[in-house]
């Protein structure tokens, strides 16, 4: 959940409010345009992507001096070379008004732009400009910035410091720091190097709505919100399902230690319906469904065992099954939120948010996985 005032939470929980989106245009650490009205917005966040958030919006601009703001060259306002939109959701109910930072997005594409013009006192002036923008969060720059020379960690004392050096982004150190266990050669992909480092802290890195790089824990937290169906709830619709895809009962680790020795570990489920074999050794209903892991920062058998145990706990749940949910628009909902869902029959289930799609509709689509 994003932070907001108690008043804002109450307004959102009651579901009776109006909202709109606004954006600031930032370029080169300076705000170039403030409080742009934006239209036709789609913002989609998906936890399975490296660059979590993407989307699009339309900006309708009427210039005070009847100029066109269409970008023509690299470096113009709104040109897709480092121009950034800070997108805010404004929640309003009566005299109450609060601004919630929603996303800090890079403009990656301007697929369409057009001017409306008219004749005025013998010259043609621009009465308005319409820009369609395609947006992705700040990680897109990390993704594009592959290592141009083979690289390894500049120091081994701190994961967070290394992440700061790798990405050049501002940080919020939301998880406790740890040393880097081993000097390695980074893969070409800088985003992959970032994910590998974050693994050391047990976190998933993401670009927060104020443009900082921060992490949420892979392990499930206690629920931060309750979604309730029915007359006093904000849950509109939920579609349940079940699938065996990407559910595993054995995790095998194969890696390499500090003395260049082999490091092996595996964890498997021996009890319950997902057991890999029956106690007498016969074939179990679920049978073996192994998945393989390798991580160059895991250097001892004990670390490897802990790693496979934690991975097994993650992959052996029904968390592979995604449930699409329709809920009343809520700008505070974030990827990684653990929420309690209570349906009409008062059955409650704990779930974690892995996808969010927002637009100008009064509801938003949230995808959750079960715990």
């Amino acid at each position, binding site marked *: 959940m994003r932070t907001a005032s108690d008043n804002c939470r109450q307004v959102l929980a009651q579901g009776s409010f109006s909202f709109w989106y606004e954006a*600031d245009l930032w370029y080169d650490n300076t705000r170039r345009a403030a409080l742009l009205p934006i239209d036709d917005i789609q913002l989609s966040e998906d936890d399975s992507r490296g660059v979590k958030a993407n989307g699009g919006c339309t900006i309708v601009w009427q210039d005070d001096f009847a100029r066109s703001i269409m970008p023509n060259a690299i470096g113009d306002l709104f040109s897709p070379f480092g121009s950034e939109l800070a997108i805010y959701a404004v929640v309003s109910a009566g005299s109450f008004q609060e601004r919630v930072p929603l996303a800090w997005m890079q403009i990656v594409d301007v697929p369409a732009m057009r001017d409306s013009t008219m004749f005025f006192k013998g010259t043609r002036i621009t009465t308005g400009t319409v820009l369609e923008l395609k947006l992705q969060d700040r990680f897109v720059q990390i993704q594009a910035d592959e290592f141009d020379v083979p690289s390894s960690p500049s120091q081994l004392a701190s994961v967070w410091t290394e992440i700061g050096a790798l990405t050049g982004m501002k940080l919020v150190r939301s998880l406790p720091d740890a040393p880097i266990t081993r000097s390695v050669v980074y893969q070409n992909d800088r985003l992959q190097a970032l994910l590998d480092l974050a693994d050391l802290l047990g976190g998933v890195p993401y670009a927060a709505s104020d*443009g900082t790089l921060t992490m949420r824990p892979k392990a499930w937290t206690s629920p931060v919100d309750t979604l309730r169906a029915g007359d006093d709830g904000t849950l509109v619709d939920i579609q349940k399902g079940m699938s065996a895809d990407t559910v595993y009962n054995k995790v095998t680790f*194969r890696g390499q230690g500090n003395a260049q020795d082999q490091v092996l570990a*595996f964890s498997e489920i021996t009890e319950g319906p997902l057991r890999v074999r029956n106690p007498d050794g016969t074939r179990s209903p679920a049978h073996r469904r192994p998945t393989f892991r390798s991580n160059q920062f895991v250097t001892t058998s004990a670390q490897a065992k802990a790693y496979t145990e934690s991975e097994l706990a993650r992959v052996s749940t029904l968390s592979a099954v995604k449930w699409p949910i329709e809920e009343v628009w809520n700008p505070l909902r974030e990827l990684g939120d653990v929420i309690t869902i209570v349906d009409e029959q008062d059955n409650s289930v704990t779930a974690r948010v892995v996808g969010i799609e927002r637009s100008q509709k009064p509801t938003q689509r949230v995808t959750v996985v079960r715990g």
Partner: protein
Amino acid sequence: MADFDKTVRKKLAGLPSVARLVGTFVSTDGVRAVVDVGGGRIPADMTGYVPEVGEQVFALFIDGTATVIGSTVPKPGKGTVASAPLDNLVAVDTIVGRITVPYAAGLSLSAGQTVKLGAANDGLFVYAVMSTSPPPQAPPSPPSSGGKVQTQVFMPIDAGSYRAGWWTNQVYASDTNVGAWFYGSQIADTIPDGATIQSIAINISISSLSYQAPNFGVHGSATRPGVAVGLSQLTAIAIANGWVALPIGFGNYLKAAVGGIGINHGGYAILNSLAADPASGALRISWV
């Protein structure tokens, strides 16, 4: 389109699956190596290198083939005898540290001699005394990009004014109010404690302004506390809409400890709340 799909599929199907794993050399089956890899014992083709039994080796898997490509650790080719032999073993200092190895029968070894080590096959072994050994070249120093200036804009996460309670989200500079912006932990988290602050500026967004310049200071709260924040390093700074430079001391305070910026006295000035202007109080800091 279907043809394109087919072509892509064909290309993907033709991609070899490649993996390199660490294994333990067990024996040979006469023509191939037998290695324990990833918990299983498999036959693997060999290159010229013959490992010792129990040695850690790299096994390269390409599709259905496995090849032992050599030892996982470097094998030195020469060394300096550290002390006279004992029990048919001699201690030799090498590039991988001190190792204790057998030597060729008949050699008389003494400390300080440079010796040639056989490394290619089945364990290290001193097989000759070298006449001399040219000193190694100093390795080239690693490439360095040097220090570079970084600039970040830190957005406030909250703002308000305290007069017997946090009563407004606008930031007041007046004799009866303490106004403050809060930034969470991001500034101290991002800027290393050892960094040199080159500049620090605050984005001012004015709602109303009259009389004197407000007094700016730093406070030590990440988020809005229950009581008023205490300000230090108070400095009168004239303001106008846009970026206004702050004393470098503010940056030195904020890089080392969690905190934010506040204003007191001066004015009477009212600066915008975050609801009115999200960039009110944004801090732009450059450091190296």
